[in-house]
């Protein structure tokens, strides 16, 4: 009974989450990050020998580099506080997760501090990314072998 009472009390007292406002903010910030990425891709297509297909790799690298700098200067924190998921879902959020934990644990030494904690949060992203890519590739390979789809 006590627990239920507490939950009820907490619900009543805590301020309501402005879901719609948060969603709009996330949409705008995420869209802005993707717009910047699109401009960088266009830059690589126009001035270097990259096609639409191959420009994605240098674009991702550049975006991670930019988010790394922003994290180091403490600016990405502010963007994340404003944009929420809009700032953490694109690849820049991944870069931020890696670099911020590396900075945070620097005082514990380079091997056990930085090396051991760098992928604390990003490690799960990499693990499940690789695993789901493996599953998708497996399904596609089987489908191609049986002639349902082509590459």
């Amino acid at each position, binding site marked *: 009974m006590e627990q239920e009472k507490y939950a009820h009390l907490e619900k009543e007292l805590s301020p309501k989450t402005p879901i719609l406002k948060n969603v709009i903010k996330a949409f705008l910030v995420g869209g802005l990050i993707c717009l910047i990425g699109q401009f960088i891709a266009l830059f690589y*297509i*126009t001035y270097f*020998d*990259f*096609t*639409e*297909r*191959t420009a*994605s*790799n240098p674009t991702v690298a550049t975006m991670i580099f930019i988010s790394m700098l922003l994290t180091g200067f403490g600016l990405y924190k502010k963007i994340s506080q404003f944009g929420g998921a809009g700032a953490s879902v694109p690849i820049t959020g991944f870069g931020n997760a890696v670099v911020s934990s590396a900075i945070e644990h620097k005082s514990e030494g380079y091997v056990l501090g930085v090396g051991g904690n760098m992928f604390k949060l990003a490690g799960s992203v990499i693990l499940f990314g690789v695993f789901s890519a493996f599953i998708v590739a497996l399904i596609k390979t089987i489908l191609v072998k049986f002639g349902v789809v082509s590459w």
Partner: protein
Amino acid sequence: MKKLIYLLLVSLLLTGCNEKGTHIENTTTHDTVPLEKTLDSNEHVKLAVALLHEEDLIVGIRVNTFSRFQKKKIAKKINKELKKEYPDLEVTVSADSKVLLETDKLIKKGDSKNYQKKIDDIKSIAKEQT
């Protein structure tokens, strides 16, 4: 300040897509009428740049925004049609904006001595995988 932002947004929306047409540059004796007909009759293509030089025919296309998901299929289909029209030419059709950009640049420069080298470059870039 707010008015300025609105003005920028509206002008961005309005200037989205207004280029259209087909540009063809021909240095060979081949007839370009079937080429133009094929490109114009395809409803998905909004901009096309084509270059015929010696043994090569390079076509860069830009498809309508809502056809972008099928742009590879559209390019493949046009490639097939053009191969039928020009059996003795090596046809390359691509929906990649890099091919369009480079072909357009090449034609605007008008330096026909360098055509062959540049065409080989474009072809090798278009084939590249990630």
